């Protein structure tokens, strides 16, 4: 049993089920990120934890107490909203202590809690201002402060960074991570941004169409995605999904992919169990950073395969250079060192880190389990 238990929870609007049997146990101090495209049900799930939406089936328990039907204010949770939802007519101080006031906390205690949190978030100097006089980043801090003052069991964040500009978003991301490391609070965080999910979380639940597609640590999600959806949703640029055929040679399975000129190239798999798929079509999943120039290849990898191919497009991005090539009849992206000298139309040697490659069943779109 976890600190926050989501057991077999479903949500329906009329006859339409939008959330199907979600089952997640969150441990104390965990940072769980719900990530997925819009309409996947992640915000609905968060609102159900908060008590803002009813639970159709299953149950949600916080610290062992089932909270189905319990009013949001009695669940001992705090929520940070996407729009911050600061009360426009109140000062920052009033905004932050409103919840305590409503819960009947005496004034001296409120003042103390306010002072502590204001110091922690470095917003002491803003306490007398109205939200309208604050910048986006300051409002974000106040919204977090309002949640922190309550000292709740669970923090809920609903896309809190999506209204900030790109630079501030990165800063605040670090800030939230620092805060979590310092306070060791339990957080459920909703976002559609897979980089936020990767960087912040201790565990990620990738959701799509009302189903949890995969639940795991960022590394598990990134390295061994459960299915094609997770593979392509997480990571930027997305994982290359290349049609390939399994060929067993010398007793070990290889992926046979066609290069830009339609010639088959063999890449040895690290997973011996794929030999069972001999002669069958699969989808080969390789992350862009696993296809590099030979000098940039991962030295710790036990399985670097050479690949010669012609380059279609190069995109220097400053820190890296992205190279597009045709593989298996589709565009595949490779991530090179920034100063790798490649030019479009030329043929180069590449190094493919097959240790990181995964294979998917083209019919079920699930990852082929390897042991």
């Amino acid at each position, binding site marked *: 049993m976890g600190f926050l238990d989501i057991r077999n929870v479903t949500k329906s609007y009329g006859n339409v089920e939008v959330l199907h049997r979600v089952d997640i146990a969150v441990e104390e101090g965990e940072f769980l990120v719900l990530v997925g495209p819009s309409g996947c049900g992640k915000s609905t799930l968060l609102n159900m934890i*908060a008590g*803002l939406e009813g639970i159709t089936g299953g149950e949600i328990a916080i610290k062992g107490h089932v909270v189905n039907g319990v*009013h949001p204010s009695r669940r001992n949770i*705090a929520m940070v*909203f996407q729009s911050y*939802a600061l*009360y426009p007519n109140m000062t920052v101080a009033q905004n932050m202590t*409103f*919840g305590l006031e*409503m819960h009947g906390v005496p004034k001296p205690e409120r003042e103390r809690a306010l002072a502590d949190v204001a110091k922690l978030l470095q917003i002491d100097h803003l306490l007398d201002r109205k939200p309208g006089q604050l910048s986006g980043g300051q409002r974000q801090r106040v919204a977090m402060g309002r949640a922190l003052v309550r000292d709740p069991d669970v923090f809920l964040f609903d896309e809190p960074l999506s209204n900030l500009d790109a630079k501030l978003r990165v800063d605040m991301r670090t800030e939230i991570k620092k805060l979590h490391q310092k306070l060791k609070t339990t957080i459920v965080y909703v976002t559609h941004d897979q980089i936020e999910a990767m960087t912040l979380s201790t565990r990620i639940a990738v959701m799509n169409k009302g189903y949890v597609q995969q639940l795991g640590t960022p590394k598990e999600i990134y390295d061994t995605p459960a299915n094609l959806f997770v593979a392509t949703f997480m990571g930027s640029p997305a994982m290359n999904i290349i049609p390939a055929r399994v060929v067993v040679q010398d007793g070990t399975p290889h992926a046979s992919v066609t290069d830009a000129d339609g010639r088959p190239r063999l890449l040895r798999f690290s997973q011996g169990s794929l030999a069972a798929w001999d002669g069958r079509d699969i989808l080969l999943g390789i992350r862009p950073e696993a296809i590099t120039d030979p000098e940039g290849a991962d030295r710790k990898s036990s399985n670097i395969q050479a690949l010669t191919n012609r380059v279609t497009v190069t995109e220097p991005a400053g820190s890296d250079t992205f190279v597009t090539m045709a593989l298996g009849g589709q565009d595949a992206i490779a991530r090179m060192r920034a100063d790798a000298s490649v030019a479009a139309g030329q043929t180069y040697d590449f190094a493919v880190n097959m240790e990181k490659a995964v294979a998917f069943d083209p019919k079920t779109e699930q990852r082929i389990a390897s042991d």
Partner: protein
Amino acid sequence: MSAVTQDTAVSMGRVTRALIYLLLLLFALFYLLPLYVMGVNSVKPLAEITGGNMMALPEVWTLDPWRSAWSTAQIGVEPTGLKPYFLNSILMVVPAVVISTIMGALNGYILTKWRFRGDTWVFGLMLFSCFIPFQIVLIPMAVVLGKLGLAGSVPGLVLVHVVYGIGFTTLYFRNYYATFPTELVRAAQIDGAGFFQIFWRILLPVSGPIAVVSIIWQFTNIWNDFLFGASFGGTNQPMTVALNNLVQSSTGVKEYNVHFAGAILAALPTLLVYIVAGRYFVRGLMAGSVKG
């Protein structure tokens, strides 16, 4: 370094500008003319008016017509002046405006933030009440007031005007609150605020502009109403009915100067409301109707 101009409007020459101002001035004079006539004639002796000098300034200035209109003029059969009726109107307008505005605000709050099954229908029906002509409800309303024992009383008039006003005030507040972020209400719920606490602490403090619209609208409508006042006022008739009785009397000399003074007295409160709160009116009307 004055190369950068802030002027985004269409530029025009001095002559055009002068012409426009001249035109505006003419229109303003035209619209102010009736007020001038009323004002000037209310401070003249009757003889000057009947002598044919309606437009001229008074030769003898006098406040007697005002005094007469306020406290001694013959209204119906009693020589009471307009004073008691003015008080009737105030006693009717203030509670009616306050009650209908508060109820409209509550309705708007519920219809936008506490949605329930069929809420759009309820709102539609309330809107419908804005289109019912007064005359249609006279007889049913008389029956209801009679049964409630409120016929011919000021509370009865207050009830009538509240019922008639709720449709409009609900429309204003609903449209205004529709633009109010629901996340704020949810945040307040999580903070532990109840139904009325959210209303008083979160919504009402930002409802200034639309409250002004509702108050002006209700005040002018109720103050200026004649039909309900004449039908249900009984002995407690409002100002409008009294003014009619003063002006339309068919016996005796027509004291035009007193009539003018009385008419100004009757129009004064609405004029005041507009002057004090008028600049919020358009702003609030736009906020309530366009963004919704």
